[in-house]
């Protein structure tokens, strides 16, 4: 396994911080969106887009690229920030995000945003669609890997488990799901709305290899994703324990910030907490 250097770890941590700042700015500008689940997955996306994924921003449709599906499509601000910082399109294209003439949709559209492999929005589809992509890679003898990021609340949907079962049947070792397990959903704590634990045991019982990590520790996330490539007889779940709203004190563990945009003052406070220099006034 490649060991991440301290410099690389620091770089990924800084990227995660920037992605948080970008996400909050984007959601605030649009006056709508989902800040909590963007903040919880910032390290995961930093590792994916700046370390793990084999992708080429100059050639977004490259046949051999790794595929990524944001099953929790409402974290679109985080995905757009990552794609933009990775060079798929200029951040300025999001200046009018939310307006009808902005190409980038509220939720990811694979024809409108370069680098988006699958259109998402309604929860639950990622694992099953990713299963199809992974099957296609096997049939075509291509070495690309398929990655899915989904949320824990999403695992309340039956379609997720249909996909989990199917991926296991076909022993799709080229498929890796990352579960952003922040225990908060729109109506409250996941463990109150509809308990799902023990998630590690459930996925494992379904035939997946499970790696449980701290989803805010970039080294752990990166190593788990690398390890997944070494598992050759089944798909892997990286069960990432995270904090909803991570990095902004008043958003952490709050279901209110699942789907509400900050106002200007709240954004200012949040950016200060994230170490961003904010112009006063």
């Amino acid at each position, binding site marked *: 396994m490649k060991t991440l250097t301290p410099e690389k770890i620091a770089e990924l941590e800084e990227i995660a911080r920037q992605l948080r700042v970008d996400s909050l700015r984007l959601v605030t500008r649009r006056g709508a969106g989902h800040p909590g689940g963007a903040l919880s997955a910032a390290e995961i996306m930093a590792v994916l887009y700046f370390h793990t994924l084999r992708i080429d921003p100059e050639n977004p449709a490259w046949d051999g690229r790794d595929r990524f599906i944001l099953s929790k499509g409402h974290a679109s601000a985080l995905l757009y920030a990552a794609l933009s910082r990775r060079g798929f399109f200029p951040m300025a294209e999001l200046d009018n995000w939310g307006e009808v003439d902005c190409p980038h949709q509220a939720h990811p559209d694979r024809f409108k945003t370069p680098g988006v492999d699958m*259109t998402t929005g309604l929860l639950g589809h990622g694992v099953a669609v990713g*299963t199809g992509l*992974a099957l296609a890679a096997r049939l075509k003898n291509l070495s690309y890997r398929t990655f899915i990021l989904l949320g824990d609340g999403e695992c309340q949907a039956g*379609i997720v488990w*249909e996909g989990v079962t199917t991926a296991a049947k076909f022993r799709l070792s080229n498929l890796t799901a990352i579960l952003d397990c922040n225990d908060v959903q729109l109506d409250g704590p996941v463990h109150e709305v509809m308990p799902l634990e023990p998630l590690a045991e459930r996925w494992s019982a379904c035939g997946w290899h499970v790696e449980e990590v701290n989803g805010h520790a970039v080294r752990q996330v990166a190593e788990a994703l690398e390890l997944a490539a070494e598992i050759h007889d089944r798909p892997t779940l990286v069960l990432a324990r995270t904090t909803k709203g991570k990095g902004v004190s008043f958003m952490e563990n709050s279901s209110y910030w699942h789907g509400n945009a900050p106002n200007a003052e709240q954004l200012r406070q949040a950016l200060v907490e994230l170490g961003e220099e904010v112009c006063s006034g």
Partner: protein
Amino acid sequence: MREAYGRALAEYGVADPRVVALDADTSASTLSTFFARRFPERFFNIGIAEPCMVDVAAGLALGGFVPFVNGFASILSLRALEQIRTCVCYARANVKIAASYAGISDFKDGASHYSITDLANVRALPEMTVIVPADAAEGAAWVPLVAACDGPVYLRISRAGTLPVYRPGTKLEIGKGLTLRDGKDLTLVAAGSMVGRCARAAQELAARGVDARLLELHTLKPLDRDLILKAAGETGALVTAEEHSLIGGLGSAVAETLAEACPVPLERVGIRDRFCPTGRDLDKLMDMCGLSIAELVAAAGRVLERKTSKTFNRKGHDVVPEGQGTQSINSESL
């Protein structure tokens, strides 16, 4: 029809290696089993999980394949409808939905298995093409065309045999209806199993001196508006016929077209907003559910009466000039 479809899919798999097939534990019923036996590595049995099957197919399409999703129309068009909308239509994935056991063709299994709203469900989806073959030969003939068409397609397959109407070699084109019989008094517009029944009805009408045109609208979407409006203008009266609810299917599509562009009298033959019973014999069940040839003939009589009736031609809506294409016939004489 299902056997012809199943064999055609297996046959086409030879020519086009991009074609893969999925089924939901119904391959022995949909007869995707012919493909499965021939190309086991290109066949995926997803089990009793139609929504998942559709999503997996979307992924395979993104990966460059042309997946044919096989299952029961009732489950695909209802339980998997969200997957079809989001991951196939909205995501514009090149997935073909081969929806078998459509209409009331699964007569031994009853209303839970009937699919009488599927056309309404999928017709409303942007990006979707909807095709309803009339008989076994036509069902087979569509397979290569559906596979070659770039984009989502819903192909409606009957469990049963239907009265044969398709002449092998007839050119099929998505969105272009067929004129199976010319006529000037009225037009029968049919899809699927009702095409053969309408052909019989046209013969009966001819014996009574009524010259009925017969259009087969195998493509519900995109609808061949030109062919419908031409028939409306030239014959001044239409009867639609479908093995589907009257809400949202062919009759609705034709009514929408006429209402917007050429409002002539229209009678619709189909299932009248009800759950149909289990049966022993499909022909008798169809008769009982309002799809009989006698009902088609009666509907023709009603529409002709309306066409010639003064009450329809209200002031300012004299869209059917007196005497044009009409005969001295009324429903009593039929």
